[in-house]
């Protein structure tokens, strides 16, 4: 347990970069987070000492790599409180996890006329796969709408649910509005009509504890790189019975039990989903990221992110011409802040901020239907991690004010 979260910033070598002559204020954590030295070291150590293909070799090195890889599966299971290690499938990332559920599991339970419910705040990766499966199966795609405060409209959601609702797929945290959705309650409502519940946890897992048994969801997807781990590695959690019923999306080496000329018997889950050589180093890096987060402890992480977000919300809205989107109540949102400066396109704003060392995102954030709903073509987005500090926040606010002056707004 680190008492002073400020010290943890030193664990991230990239945060010492100088950009355009200014110290880097990295505020695009919703896109990807930076990596602590512990994760970088784990990758280097693996390649220097343990690199071998897993599950195949009978030699010591291969056994060592296999042991480390499978130990991370156990770590992930504990991290999200899965009932069993068999419920943890390694994937390429959240997008792959969601696509697999949509493309292989969903068609086994969907018929023409059935309904899939998603929300208007979904990232394209939890929207386009469902459009595709709806088109293929003849199911209908229906949307949970927003309230005026940028939260999901639970009354309207309740009205949407019915006996034809087979799948409900929702984001845990909006990557645009920062809204933390009441997943436990929404899952219970979906289960009451017999629907399977899929959760996109990409914006949640690095920011607060996630307990899949407490949420009671059926599938939960997330990415390593948004929680201080490497790119190219993600997780699909699924209830054991569902993973058993779900067909593999890919076929090949290591996922088989027995192959004969005309047919193949697969291994049980999770092995049947992990065809070919997996990103072994990235799995081990993800394990190091989880250990790192556990070492810091959630209370310190949450306190720092809430403090920065609340303060940024207040200071940005205090600038005339700035609109901040999403919930006003700090405890109902995560550390993502989307905003616009009247009279200046967010791309121009992001360029001006970059010249001052501030890295933010500008655009539609892979959520075009939400942009349409908000009546904007794009927004600027600052997103905080626990390693951000008061200096980053000052740099952001000062840079927005400088942009305003430069363009005489």
């Amino acid at each position: 347990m680190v008492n002073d979260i400020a010290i943890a910033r030193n664990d991230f070598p990239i945060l010492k970069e100088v950009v355009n002559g200014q110290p880097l204020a990295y505020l695009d954590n919703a896109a990807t987070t930076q990596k602590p030295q512990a994760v970088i070291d784990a990758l280097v150590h693996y390649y220097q000492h343990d690199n071998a293909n897993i599950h195949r070799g009978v030699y010591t090195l291969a056994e060592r790599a296999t042991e480390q890889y499978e130990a991370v599966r156990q770590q992930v299971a504990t991290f999200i409180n899965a009932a069993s290690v068999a419920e943890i499938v390694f994937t390429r990332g959240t997008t792959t996890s969601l696509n697999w559920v949509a493309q292989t599991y969903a068609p086994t339970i969907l018929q023409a006329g059935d309904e899939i419910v998603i929300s208007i705040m979904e990232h394209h990766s939890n929207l386009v796969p469902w459009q595709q499966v709806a088109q293929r199966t003849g199911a209908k795609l229906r949307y949970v709408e927003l309230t005026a405060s940028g939260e999901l409209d639970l009354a309207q959601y309740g009205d949407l649910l019915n006996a034809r609702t087979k799948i409900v797929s929702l984001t845990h945290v909006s990557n645009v509005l920062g809204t933390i959705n009441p997943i436990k309650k929404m899952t219970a409502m979906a289960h009451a009509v017999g629907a399977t519940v899929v959760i996109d946890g990409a914006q949640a897992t690095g920011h607060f504890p996630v307990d899949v048994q407490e949420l009671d969801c059926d599938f939960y997807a997330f990415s390593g790189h948004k929680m201080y781990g490497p790119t190219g590695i993600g997780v699909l959690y699924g209830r054991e019975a569902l993973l058993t019923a779900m067909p593999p999306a890919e076929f090949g080496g290591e996922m088989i039990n027995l192959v004969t000329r005309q047919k193949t018997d697969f291994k049980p889950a999770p092995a049947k989903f992990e065809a070919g050589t997996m990103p072994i180093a990235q799995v081990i890096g993800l394990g190091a990221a989880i250990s790192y987060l556990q070492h810091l402890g959630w209370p310190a992480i949450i306190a720092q992110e809430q403090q920065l977000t609340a303060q940024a919300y207040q200071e940005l809205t205090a600038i005339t011409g700035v609109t901040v989107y999403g919930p006003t109540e700090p405890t109902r949102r995560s550390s993502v802040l989307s905003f616009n400066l009247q009279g200046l396109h967010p791309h121009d704003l992001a360029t001006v901020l970059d010249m001052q060392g501030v890295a933010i995102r500008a655009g539609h954030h892979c959520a075009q239907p939400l942009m349409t709903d908000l009546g904007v073509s794009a927004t600027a987005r600052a997103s905080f991690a626990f390693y951000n500090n008061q200096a980053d926040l000052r740099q952001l606010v000062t840079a927005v004010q400088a942009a305003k002056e430069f363009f005489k707004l």
Partner: protein
Amino acid sequence: MNLGGLNDLYRQLIIDHAQHPHHHGELPAASQTITLNNPTCGDVIKLAVTFADDRIEQIAFSGEGCSISQASASMMTDLVQGQTRAQAKKEIQVFLEMLMENPEATQDDPDELLGDAAVLAAVVKFPARIKCATLAWKALEQAISEEEAHE
């Protein structure tokens, strides 16, 4: 604050065009209407062109975009209105080459050929913004080629 580099990109001329774009609007009787979007940022341009013989008689644009894309469209429409298709095609080529960080590719001087749009050469130093600058020109390229395909 390091805003020196910003003056290179956001010259007053660019800000003026962005804030008060020329030829902004619709052309109901256009011979060609092309809508292009920049999928990475969601910016959209709708370019309408009326051709008379081999000339661009009328041109107008509408849509959503950043200062660079709006200024670029404004400057381009100023430049090409009244010109022949051949002239416009030449200018599109020079403009796109200017932003490919490959000024040697052309013998032509952007300053002489491109009018106000020559100031957009500064966008080369901001690689993430090049697509903003080229969107309108690509729309015009497509409008001309569709017009020629119908001849």
